[in-house]
């Protein structure tokens, strides 16, 4: 729903995947789900047969053994009692093994689904990632997956078994009397026919529930995340009113969904009543008005049928119940699969890809154009070469397209036309691993993980030892800064690095980049004002970080441009000037001279 969103970049909601399709694709993603399915199915048949047989055996023992015409028949009672005990044991064991196996395969399958979906989120283009709320992405790999688990253990297989039981009951009924079998099916026809309707309604209702859930979570997060603002503006009442509203909406959406569930479920009972009445009335009518085609119906047939109807009703109700509960699970499953269906459009050539040699890289933009999907062109026909080892600053007003240059260089996006070449190789042909090894981007806000400084720095090179990190810090002139931290390298940075100041976070990001030891460094200069003394440190560290590498800085400060070997001025998506600072600033009426003049004016205040 963002203004950035457009059909090409949005995450697949999965909403248009049909239920059966969801299951089919779900199994394809998690093949574990069908492992040993035959054995589980066999156990399930035994367990469900047992559930029918045990009461019958007990019944027989009571009726014939104990309550027999000639007093208790001890030997028959013992025989049946032992038989019942064996049946109970077999049923219980079968049930235990079946459920265990179901739990095992389901949980294994779901773990696979979770992990694959997680990985896929990271493989998605940056643009697509940004169209979803973080929380919504997280819920797709957590609670949405959890929703599926109940269904897989207690739903899927039992639905198949129920269907089988309905089929068997139907066959037995037809054998007894095909006329009455038709009566039963006619009684249930409204239920079967309405199932689709209810499924659709339920699916829509649960869709609303999920949306309201998201809105409610957002509302609930306001007094937590925005506590200071809510407090200092004294808008508690308004915030509470918004939350109450969201809570109420969620409640009413849930109630609506529950109504459909309940009505759909209770229909089964009414059909059963109809079937019973129909069997008796029509059975009696057919049996007493002997037509030539119904002469075989006797009182026994009618009574046996009344019993058969219960065998039919049980699984039908079980099946409807599962179908109803399944809507929620399928909805969750669909959303997770939706992630996997979203194309990861930057294709990694993988093993076939080229590997960049080490050493400073030379960069070439070969007639590169770029536009966001459905948007106007951001870059037009950029043709630019940067020799290896050079320090280049890209400047231009906001919206000029200079940040896009950084995204294309680091292959966060691919150009619409033309190619970006590193050491003469199109970035699209370079193996992703090699590209990430050789090219490092330092973004404006260096994101830190809730771990120690050492762990965050090591993100740049996983096998770095503490000594190597310290040496690396010393090279950047950060040794004394590390020493001022309470626990040195082992200092924890807090969530998103918030225990450190913004400037310190930048230092960690620089250290991380230095340890990664790239051959091409792409810097998106930070704009935030930070503690002045840290600012100086950052400047020094940056200076040393750029030494001996090709570097491209998206510069927001004129001082950066001044100290670069060369400045590239981007204006409205085109390179309008390039050259050393002194040369460009001398070109009167040029874009660069204008930018510089506004800086000088600012200096005066």
């Amino acid at each position: 729903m963002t203004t950035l969103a457009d059909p090409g970049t949005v995450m697949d909601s999965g909403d248009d995947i049909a239920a059966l399709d969801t299951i089919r694709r779900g199994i394809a993603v998690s093949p574990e789900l069908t492992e040993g399915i035959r054995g589980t199915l066999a156990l399930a048949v035994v367990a469900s047969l047992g559930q029918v047989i045990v009461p019958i055996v007990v019944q027989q023992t009571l009726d014939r053994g104990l309550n027999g015409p000639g007093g208790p028949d001890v030997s028959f009672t013992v025989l049946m009692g032992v038989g019942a005990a064996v049946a109970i044991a077999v049923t219980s064991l079968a049930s235990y093994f079946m459920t265990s196996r179901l739990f095992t395969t389901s949980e294994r399958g779901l773990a696979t689904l979770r992990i694959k979906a997680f990985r896929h989120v990271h493989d998605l283009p940056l643009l697509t990632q940004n169209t979803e709320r973080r929380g919504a992405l997280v819920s797709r790999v957590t609670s949405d997956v959890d929703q599926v688990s109940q269904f897989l253990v207690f739903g899927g297989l039992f639905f198949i078994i129920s269907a089988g039981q309905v089929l068997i009951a139907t066959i037995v009924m037809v054998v007894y009397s095909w006329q009455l079998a038709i009566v039963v099916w006619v009684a249930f026809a409204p239920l079967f026919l309405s199932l689709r309707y209810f499924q659709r309604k339920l699916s829509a209702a649960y869709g609303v529930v999920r949306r309201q859930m998201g809105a409610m979570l957002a509302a609930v997060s306001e007094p937590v995340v925005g506590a200071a603002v809510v407090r200092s503006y004294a808008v508690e009442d308004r915030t509470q009113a918004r939350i109450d509203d969201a809570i109420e909406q969620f409640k009413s959406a849930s109630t609506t969904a529950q109504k459909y569930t309940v009505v759909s479920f209770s229909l089964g009972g009414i059909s059963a009543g109809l079937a019973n009445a129909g069997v008796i009335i029509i059975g009696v009518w057919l049996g007493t008005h002997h037509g030539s085609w119904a002469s075989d119906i006797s009182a026994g047939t009618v009574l046996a049928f009344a019993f058969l109807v219960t065998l039919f009703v049980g699984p039908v109700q079980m099946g409807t119940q599962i179908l109803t509960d399944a809507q929620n699970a399928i909805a969750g499953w669909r959303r997770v699969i939706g992630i996997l269906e979203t194309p990861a459009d930057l294709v990694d050539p993988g093993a076939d890809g080229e590997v960049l040699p080490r050493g400073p890289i030379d960069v070439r933009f070969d007639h590169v154009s770029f536009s966001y999907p459905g948007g106007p062109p951001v870059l037009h026909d950029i043709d630019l070469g940067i020799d290896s080892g050079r320090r280049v600053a890209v400047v231009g007003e906001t919206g000029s397209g200079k940040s896009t240059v950084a995204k294309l260089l680091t292959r966060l996006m691919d150009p619409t036309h033309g190619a970006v070449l590193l050491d003469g190789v199109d970035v699209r042909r370079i193996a992703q691993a090699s590209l990430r090894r050789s090219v490092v981007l330092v973004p404006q806000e260096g994101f830190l993980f809730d771990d120690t400084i050492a762990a965050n720095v090591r993100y740049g090179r996983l096998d770095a030892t503490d000594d190597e990190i310290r040496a690396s810090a010393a090279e950047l002139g950060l040794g004394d800064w590390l020493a001022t931290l309470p626990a040195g390298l082992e200092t924890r940075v807090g969530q998103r690095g918030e225990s450190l100041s913004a400037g310190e976070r930048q230092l960690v990001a620089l250290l991380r980049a230095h340890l990664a030891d790239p051959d091409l460094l792409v810097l998106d200069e930070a704009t935030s004002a930070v503690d002045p003394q840290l600012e100086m440190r950052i400047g020094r560290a940056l200076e040393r970080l750029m030494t001996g590498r090709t570097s491209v800085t998206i510069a927001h400060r004129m001082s950066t441009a001044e100290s670069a070997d060369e400045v590239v001025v981007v204006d409205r998506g085109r390179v309008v000037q390039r050259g050393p600072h002194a040369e460009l600033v001398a070109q009167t009426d040029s874009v660069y001279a204008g930018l510089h003049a506004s800086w000088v004016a600012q200096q005066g205040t």
Partner: protein
Amino acid sequence: MSESGATTRAATTLEGFRVIWVAIKREPWVFTLSTVGSLLFGALTVADAWVLGWSTQHVVLPAFDDGEVGAGMLVAVLALFLGVALLRAVGIVARRLGAGIMQYRMQAHSRRAVTRQYLSLPMEWHQRHPTGELLSNANSDVEAAWGPIAPLPMAVGTVAMMVIAVVQMFVADLVLAVVGLLVFPAVIVANLAYQRLASPLMTRAQELRAEVSEIAHESFDGAMVVKTLGREGEETDRFAAKARELRDVNIRAGRIRAAFDPTLAALPNVGVLVVLAVGVSRVLSGATVAGDVVTVAYLLTIVSFPIRSIGWLLGEFPRSVVGFRRVSRVIEATGEIPYGATPAPAGSRGVRLEVDHLAYSYVPGQRLLDDVEFTVEPGRTVAIVGATASGKSTLTALLARLVDPDRGRILVDGVDLRDLDRGQLAEVGALVPQTAFLFDDDVRGNVTLGAAVSDEQVWAALRAAQADGFVAALPHGLDTKLGERGTSLSGGQRQRISLARALVRRPRLLVLDDATSAVDPEVEARILAALREGQEGVDAGATLVVVAYRKATIALADEVVHLQDGRVVDRGTHAELLARSASYARLVNAYEHGEHPPTDPGERDPEGDDLMAGEVSR
């Protein structure tokens, strides 16, 4: 939580009932409705068998004997079957819908109570609790707490059935009834064993779910770093390790469940067999008649299903109790901020602000502010300058009364902030924090926060905050949705919206806590000029407290308060401090060195030219 395992388990069951009792007391009518529905359902299940018997006796057998049947009887059969079926459907609807409504209502009650606490508990409390924990308190913990309500009416209804069945058993044969009733302690033992085995696993699974979710959250938050350093594989490994641990715990819990379910199903059947064995010997010895054995055995089989439904109820208890405890911790937390009864001091110009011997520590013994004292005359501007962690942000939090001082006081126009009535401070002052928080609302709502303000005033405030340009360029102007789901704004744009929110209220005291740090210096200069000199939508007369790093910003202040380690080390004009304080000069000049205006005088482009646009989603 130092109880031993066994007592914890017993306590869990008891506490589970207590949680349910809370729900019943809160929603007695819905509970009654659903229980009556459940009883109706049970009774009509029995009636169904009776109708079949009646039909056999009075319709089927006579009809086949006589060869004909009266239409009236057939109508009666239809009416009976349909009547029972319809009533039973009513019972199902009442039971299940009632249970659902009760569950959703209890969830809503708890969520309202929890969020009310979030809004009334002091900031110190918020700081002690991680965001994720508070969010899950209002969400999954509430859900877990009221989980047992779904199977509740069914269980209560079946308890009634069981009582009737048990009475009948005793009437039939005392000894056999006692034997048969041994099933109940067996069920309880099975349940305790289940709780004992499953509870720790379920608790662990809940923890692991939280950890899996934390990793996912953090990893997706840092997606850009992961991508640019090519660490997708390592991140996936990190996530997979936890996901697999969760899987293994779930499988272990599942195996226990797999053993528990059939045990529960088998117990009544085993009971029947035992009754049968005892019964046969009693019949042979003449102590009882066969019919009574059959009755007791039959009644036992009837209660076997209800026993299972009670098992389902008890099975929900461990999760429910854990959730309820976590929710209760929030609801029972105390420490509301006390308010006085004084109204906001009247006046149209800026307030006189007195900071009087202020001391504050978050952790006892660690002073964040110590003996801070300064006065700002109406309409003057003060800059608070200091290195990282010198106490600047703490001071602004105290000025907005997000926290109260340990010692000393803050006066606006002579009134102690603590004496002001609830909501009155906001009438006078506005704080703009460094990290701009945007509500899940449109631009207008984010600026007005519900106050009765005309669109003209909103635009004027946006203009003063230098935000009118990019807001006008948004697809729906003031109606554009912001927040996490809305348009991605850059950090600087967010700060400017947040500033407009303060300005539209025409505050007499404006506190800016590094509130323009992500705004380009040139734009910042225009904002500050508007604040000092006034323009349409902004009163020039407001008293201004500014925390800042940029020299140009600091230079605009009438006076500078230099903070160091929580103490005021010097006060005076920027020029004076520069001249007499070496540490001050070092602080601000160090910055001057690296600081130059950016090349971006204009507005940030919502089309995403900012690499991090959309990334900033707190």
